[in-house]
């Protein structure tokens, strides 16, 4: 089962077309294993990207170097998944009993 411990989802706010392009460059770097939840779109709409732990440092340095603003939308993806799983299994356990 795929484990997402340490993966973060960054919410990137691009100010202009040049910044959209910069983020699009990131998308092409397959070794970073980025997963765009909301892809680069019209300026004004946020870009959400899941970043594996191993790529976090590089991506944050890249964004900060290019003055691209971001916030951490999800601190740790796995912890949200664990909550979701717990709820599903709790229901199934009740249903079984």
């Amino acid at each position: 089962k795929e484990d997402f411990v340490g993966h973060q989802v960054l919410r990137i706010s691009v100010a202009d077309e040049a910044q959209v392009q910069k983020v699009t460059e990131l998308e092409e770097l397959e070794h970073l294993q980025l997963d765009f939840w909301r892809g680069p779109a019209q300026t004004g709409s946020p870009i959400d990207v899941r970043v594996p732990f191993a790529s976090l440092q590089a991506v944050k340095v890249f964004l900060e170097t290019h003055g691209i603003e971001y916030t951490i939308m999800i601190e740790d993806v796995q912890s949200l998944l664990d909550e979701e799983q717990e709820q599903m299994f709790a229901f199934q356990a009740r249903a079984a009993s």
Partner: protein
Amino acid sequence: TDTFNYAIYHTLEEIYGFIDMLVAEYPQLVSKLQIGNTYEGRPIYVLKFSTGGDNRPAIWIDTGIHSREWVTQASGVWFAKKIAQDYGQDAALTSILDSMDIFLEIVTNPDGFAFTLSKNRLWRKTRSITAGSLCVGVDPNRNWDAGFGLAGASSSPCSQTYYGKFANSEVEVKSIVDFVKNHGNIKAFISIHSYSQLLLYPYGYTTESAADQAELDQLAESAVKALSSLYGTHFKYGSIIDTIYQASGSSIDWAYNQGIKYSYTFELRDTGSYGFLLPASQIVPTAQETWLALQTIMEYTLNHLY
């Protein structure tokens, strides 16, 4: 199905079990069609809601084509119960079903959905194997024969938006294409995704405006207004390419080019910071508000048959 828990996420087996229960409880109204089998051999089911007649004008609704967008399959389950229980109770829905059929495909990407439950919760694509590549799956919303392979999708099998070897290469897509073509009387085609609160209409693969752009835009405005009236959820609306980005090979572009005028894609909640991991507590509110928009589109279609 009265005691089914609509406020949590369910497994594929539980959803298929729900479908069978609904058919058993409303045999005069609901039937289950199998339109094909997935790449891995799972059945692909579509619910048909019909009060009779032969090949009536119909409305197509699908959820879950991108498997990780769990709130959409969960909303599809809620819609199915809503349609069944409201027929004969709600005047608007009753008038729709007295003249039209509704087809609802709740799990449009069963292999992908099973994979999100077993191996990778964030899986989006199908699970077909691409010869010569280590990467698996095709984006089932880039595989339709509308601008297929153009900008707005990827030729790389490892990309989340990989368009596949050829249009309709994915049996999950081809099954719908064949069904819609064989039916020949679908008047509205609504594909439900998440997230980012958008109501989109053609086109995604070209900047050219749809011939019915003004009407589609006006109907989208009404639908979004109805949706927002319940909980104030803010939606934007417009053509795919103008509102988000260029996306080729999408289902609603194909449907529109087939002559299905009222073709829309919804992008449901998240309004906060959960993305695809929307808490189950938001399933029912999301389904309820979306239903108001769906009803607006269905009523308009009924009153503007073509």
